[in-house]
Each structure stands twice: as structure tokens, then as C-alpha cells.
């Protein structure tokens, strides 16, 4: 067996052995597989006969996903570069007498595998994709393969860009400008026809994304074309798209390797950046996506005494992280929810129905955004435990910045959604209040999760249990809201349901926060 084959097989064997030694991870894998089987089987247990939505919408969605992932990944080439290799590869393989091409092949193959794993979340989208577009499990696999191929090509482009421009700042700026212009031109090509048509709509956007020229866009256009060809039974289109991809990859690798003798130096640098980030994460050091060049602006906290110093510190940090009112993650969540509502608008019978669907989707997305607040990062450093103030006062102080954010987010999201759907002011107000109450409940759920299972070493398992706890805590409120909604009649049903939901969430959230008021007595909740 060659050295690299031994490395790959041994690493996999050890992963399996690790599962045997670590029951937590084993439980997680079993739960993951069980959930996957459930998601894949559910649509068959409850088949929806009749018409499906036009699949050109699916191709437009695929283009948006593939394009975003490819461009974002390739964009790393302007900063750290990204790397297929770890520091162990650099220190052990690069200095060994193995042929460089073999090592590169190993890196490429492993990266393709990683991209596939990263795309596993797509498998959980089967249920709604099947309901709306009637896709089969095999077709879902094609979507996943396309996603993995996009990530892989994006990484390859990032490495090439980095190795070609990292040493020359003027060149880096020029290439970045061209890159930005190309993206702008593509966006204009996709959006302008819809805007110029006089009546911009989802249908016209979808038509733009399915225009013949789109299939010629390198990488994500080709992959969309391949997906379309597979689903529509056009083998020639699939072959042409895959041949273009193969030619692209075959051309870019020598181009990258020819960039000079410093290729290994570039790989070493980006591997070091990556390793530092991973080590910091393992050590529990707070890391966040901060701008490369931070503008400090006014110096000093200026305010805060006792626990409130945390809140004023968060305000300074937000200003420097260029978070004005809402951060990028919140804006992405709002945009995705509004996009979903636009799709639902066409299928729902009434505004209330579409509003409920939009609210449910927004709440689902909220589960993830709540776990990303600055207060969670605060739990990773010792100061919040060491400061001599009552734990509950500290808890409220570190959550205050997030509470302000969720109120603003709720108003922005549901005013726009209400206007899009033609909802009444009372319905919009109901949604805003219920959204804020869900934020409180989710924050409380997050605290409860840390209290109960925060010391588990597998953060993925903690995330899974967090979702489970949220479902259990929120379920009674949802049931009560449905009952109240149906009892109150058609006119007041929506508002009554939202009122009951708000009341339950507030009650449960405050109760949990009170019961966990001493959480900041010990840092053990984070296993440190």
C-alpha cells in the first residue's frame, strides 16, 4: 500500500474507532442517519398528488446557491487563500520524497470529499423540494454533487488567485476590481431584464436565471446546465457542461503550479492561517469574522459601571465590526425569509396563510441566528465569570445588545413582509410581538442547553440537543396558539394565535431564565 493510501485508510479507520470510544459522537451519527431516513421517507408516506411547481424555479434556486458558494469560496483567494492542506500535510508530506503531483492529487480528492460532507445539509431539504417540485432522492444527489463540485472549483480558484496575486498588492487590487466588475455584470445580466420588463416579479427573475446564456457562465452556470440536463433528460447538455468543467480543472491546476517556486510557501501560509483559526476554536478562544482593517473610531467605552460595562463594550465591538443596527447574518436571514415569502405568495390562498408560512420559516431560521449573538461569545472568556456582580445581572447585561437587535430585526422583517403580502397593521404587530417573544424563548433555550449539556465535548451534539430542547419548550405554545386561533374565528383568529404564542413564549422564557439565573457562577458549562 502506498503511503498516501495508508494515510487515507488509517484516518478513516480511526474515525470509526473514535465512534466506538465516544458514545456521544456515535449517538449523534445514529440520530443524524435516523433523521435523514425520516426526511427521505416522509414525503413517500404522505405523497402529494397533483401538480408540482415549475422546475425552472428549482434551477434558478440551484444557480443562486451554486453561484453564491462558488464566488464566496473563490473570494478567499484575495485574503488568506484557503488551502487543501493541513499543517500536518505541510510538515510531513511536503518534505517527504513523494512526487508533488501525487500530493496535489491527494489534496484535491480529499477536498472533494470535504465539499460533499459540507453539502450534507442539502439532503435535509428533500421534504420541501419533493413536495414543491417532485424531485426524487437521486435528483437530490445530483443537486448535492453539483454543490460539492462548486465548492471544490471555488477552492481551486481561491488557491490559484492567492498564488498568483499574494506577493503583489497592486496586482491583487486590480484583480479584485475586475472580479467585482464581473460579479456586477453577472448580477446585472440576471436582474436587469426583470427590472426593465416594467413589472418585476419572481417569474421574470426565474426566467432570467434560466436564460440560455446563463449556461455558459463558467463553473456555476455549467453546473446548473448539467443539473438541468440530468433532470430534463438532455444527455448532450450534461456531457458538454461536464466536459467544460473537466477542461477548466485540467487547465487551472497547471496554471496554479506554474505560478512560481513559492507555491509551497503560499500553501504553508494559508495552512498556517487555517491551523491558527482551528486551534483558537479548539482552545475556546473567541473568534469572529472581523473586518481586515478595523476602523477604531472613537476610543474608550465611556459608559457602564458593574455589569453594564459588558453592554457598552458590546456596542464598541459592534461599531468596530461594522455592525450598524443589524449584522450581515441577520440581513441574510431576512433576505432569505422574504424570498421564501415571495415564492409562497403565489401558492397561498390568503394573506394570513402566506403570513403564517412566512412566520414559520422566519422562526425556523431564528433558531440558528439566536445562537450567533455576541453574548454567546462572552461565555467563552473568563471575565463574565470573574466580575464581582450577581450572575443574573451579568446575564441580563450580556444579553441586552442581542435583545435590541432582535426587536429591530422583528420590526424590519414583518413590516416589509406585511407590506408584500397586504397584511393588516394588527397582523403585522402580532407577528412582531410573537417574533420578539420567540427570540427571548430561544435565548432562554440556549442558556438552558448550555446549563444542561454545555459540558459535552461535541458541539454538533450540543447544537442538535439545542434544537430538540427548543422544539419541546415551544411546542405547547404552538398547540395553544392553534387552539386559540381556531376558537377565535376567522376575523380575529390570527391575532389571537399570535397573542397566545407571545404569552406562552414570554412565560416559558422568563421561567427558564430565572431557573438558570446562576449560570454565570461557573464556566464549566463550556467545558473549560
Amino acid at each position, binding site marked *: 500500500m502506498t503511503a498516501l493510501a495508508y494515510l487515507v485508510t488509517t484516518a478513516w479507520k480511526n474515525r470509526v474507532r473514535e465512534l466506538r470510544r465516544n458514545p456521544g459522537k456515535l449517538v449523534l451519527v445514529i440520530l443524524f442517519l435516523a433523521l435523514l431516513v425520516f426526511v427521505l421517507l416522509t414525503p413517500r408516506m404522505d405523497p402529494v398528488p397533483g401538480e408540482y411547481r415549475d422546475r425552472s424555479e428549482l434551477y434558478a434556486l440551484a444557480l443562486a446557491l451554486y453561484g453564491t458558494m462558488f464566488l464566496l469560496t473563490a473570494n478567499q483567494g484575495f485574503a488568506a487563500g484557503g488551502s487543501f492542506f493541513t499543517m500536518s500535510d505541510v510538515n510531513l508530506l511536503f518534505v517527504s520524497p513523494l512526487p508533488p503531483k501525487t500530493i496535489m492529487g491527494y489534496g484535491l480528492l480529499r477536498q472533494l470529499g470535504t465539499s460533499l460532507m459540507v453539502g450534507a445539509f442539502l439532503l435535509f431539504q428533500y421534504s420541501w423540494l419533493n413536495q414543491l417540485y417532485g424531485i426524487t432522492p437521486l435528483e437530490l444527489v445530483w443537486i448535492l454533487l453539483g454543490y460539492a463540485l462548486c465548492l471544490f472549483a471555488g477552492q481551486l480558484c481561491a488557491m490559484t488567485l492567492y498564488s498568483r496575486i499574494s506577493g503583489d498588492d497592486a496586482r491583487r487590487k486590480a484583480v479584485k476590481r475586475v472580479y467585482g466588475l464581473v460579479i456586477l455584470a453577472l448580477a446585472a445580466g440576471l436582474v436587469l431584464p426583470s427590472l426593465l420588463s416594467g413589472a418585476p416579479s419572481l417569474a421574470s427573475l426565474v426566467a432570467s436565471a434560466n436564460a440560455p446564456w446563463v449556461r455558459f457562465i463558467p463553473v456555476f452556470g455549467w453546473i446548473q446546465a448539467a443539473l438541468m440536463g440530468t433532470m430534463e433528460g438532455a444527455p448532450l447538455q450534461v456531457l458538454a457542461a461536464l466536459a467544460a468543467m473537466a477542461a477548466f480543472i485540467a487547465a487551472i491546476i497547471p496554471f496554479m503550479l506554474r505560478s512560481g517556486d513559492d507555491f509551497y510557501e503560499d500553501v504553508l501560509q494559508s495552512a498556517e492561517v487555517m491551523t491558527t483559526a482551528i486551534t483558537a476554536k479548539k482552545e475556546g478562544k473567541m473568534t469572529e469574522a472581523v473586518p481586515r482593517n478595523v476602523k477604531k473610531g472613537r476610543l474608550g467605552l465611556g459608559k457602564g459601571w458593574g455589569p453594564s460595562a459588558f453592554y457598552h463594550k458590546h456596542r464598541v465591538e459592534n461599531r468596530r465590526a461594522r455592525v450598524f443596527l443589524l449584522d450581515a447574518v441577520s440581513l441574510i436571514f431576512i433576505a432569505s425569509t422574504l424570498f421564501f415569502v415571495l415564492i409562497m405568495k403565489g401558492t397561498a390562498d390568503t394573506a394570513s396563510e402566506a403570513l403564517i408560512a412566512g412566520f414559520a420559516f422566519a422562526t425556523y431560521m431564528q433558531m440558528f441566528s439566536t445562537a450567533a449573538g455576541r453574548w454567546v461569545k462572552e461565555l467563552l472568556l473568563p471575565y463574565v*465569570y470573574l466580575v*464581582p*456582580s450577581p450572575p443574573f445581572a451579568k446575564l441580563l447585561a450580556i444579553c441586552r445588545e442581542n435583545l435590541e437587535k432582535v426587536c429591530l430585526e422583528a420590526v424590519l422583517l414583518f413590516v416589509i413582509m406585511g407590506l408584500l403580502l397586504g397584511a393588516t397593521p394588527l397582523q403585522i404587530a402580532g407577528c412582531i410581538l410573537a417574533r420578539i417573544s420567540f427570540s427571548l424563548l430561544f435565548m432562554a433555550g440556549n442558556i438552558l442547553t448550555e446549563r444542561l449539556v454545555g459540558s459535552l465535548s461535541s458541539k454538533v451534539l450540543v447544537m442538535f440537543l439545542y434544537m430538540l430542547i427548543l422544539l419541546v419548550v415551544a411546542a405547547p405554545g404552538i398547540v395553544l396558539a392553534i387552539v386559540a386561533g381556531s376558537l377565535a374565528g376567522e376575523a380575529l383568529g390570527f391575532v389571537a394565535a399570535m397573542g397566545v404564542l407571545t404569552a406562552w413564549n414570554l412565560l416559558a422564557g422568563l421561567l427558564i431564565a430565572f431557573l438558570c439565573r446562576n449560570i454565570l457562577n461557573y464556566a464549566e458549562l463550556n467545558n473549560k
Partner: protein
Amino acid sequence: MLSVSHVSKRYGKVLANNDVSLEVRDGEIGVLLGPNGAGKSTLIKCIAGLLRFDGEILIDGRPNKSLEAKRALGYIPEIPAVYDLLTVWEHLEFIGRAYQDKDWETAGQALLERLELAPQRDKLGKELSKGMQQKLSICCALVHRPRVVIFDEPMVGLDPHAIKELKALFTELKAQGCTVLISTHMLDSVEDFWDVAHIMMHGAFAATRRNDPASLGEESLESLFFSITEGGRPQ
């Protein structure tokens, strides 16, 4: 004064600290020595109030979870605890405000100068090298003028010059009457100034010596350490 009485700490089935007791008096420097995995950091974290434990820990005569004890404690973690988006001076302002200390500015300025961080006053946490982050972490722990200071592997990541400065700082804290406890596996870094040494093995104290001929005899701290950690000699 720092007093640890019959402290035990378990992580699941692993007994990290087993019925540990120690005392470091005012104006004394205590050192916790031991190989990797001996339980030193766990004990330091228990004292800092970060971990749950069985037993009793008193800081200046008060239970370590009380607000008075927290006010009297300074803790320097092994990994520098620094906020990426705050400047060096803002870290000190934050601690001063959070600890409700009106005199933090004078103390902060003196510390920055003492640890040669004054030129970096307006630099962000993320712009500092690991050594400078460690120095900032030390400033944050000392700016509110604690009576009891615990260091967890404080020399890691520091250059020889900074190590020299830190050693001088230990003796200054001692001269001010502070209680100092240092956890380290670098024997030579503490041999000049320790008052009481505890050598840990497998979560318990294998030996305790005071820095006087009656306790230590002819044996050096280093030879005692190796005879215990390599030879398993019970003390």
C-alpha cells in the same frame, strides 16, 4: 491569603483533583509543579471559581464564589483572554468599570509602563502578538489591585525579556503583601523566589516543601521533582 481544603474535582469518571489541600499566606509565593495532566490547571480553575468542586476554597477568608472573594482575586489564564475589537487601554477601562474601581486609570497606566505595553495602548487585541496578549491578560488581572493572584502557566509564549519582567513582578506582588500562586511545569522559572512548592501527580500532591533548609534539606527542588515524577517516590 488563599486556603484550599479537601478539594476534589471529577470530569465524569476521571478524578482530576483528589482531596487537595494547600495554603498560601499573605506575602508568599506558592508554586504548583507537575507534569502535563497532573491536575494543576484544574485546581487553578477551581480556585478562580470557574469549575464546580467538592471541598472549600477561601480567598482572603471568604468563599471563592462570594462577590468579595471575586473582587480580591486576579486570575491569569493559560490562554490569553483578549477581546479582538478592544484596544489595550479599553481592556483596562472595561475591567475598571466592570469591577467598579474608580482608580483603575492610575493603576492601568502604571501596569502598561511596568510591562512595556504603553506604546501599544491604542492597538486592538487582534493586532497584538501572543506574548503581548499574555502581557495584556496580566494587566487585566492586576488592574483592580487584587489581594490574591493566581497564574496558570504564565511564562508560555513570553520572550526571555518578558519572562524576566514577569519574575520581577512576582516579587513586587510579594513585597506588597499579595498572595501569589503560580502553576507551571517550567521548574527553572520559579526556583529563585518560591516560598512553598506543591508537586502534583495524578491529581494529588506528591510532595509539599517550604523554601527553607528544614523542609527541603540538601535536595534541590529540581531533583525532588524528578525523583517524584520519574521514580514515583511517595512523599
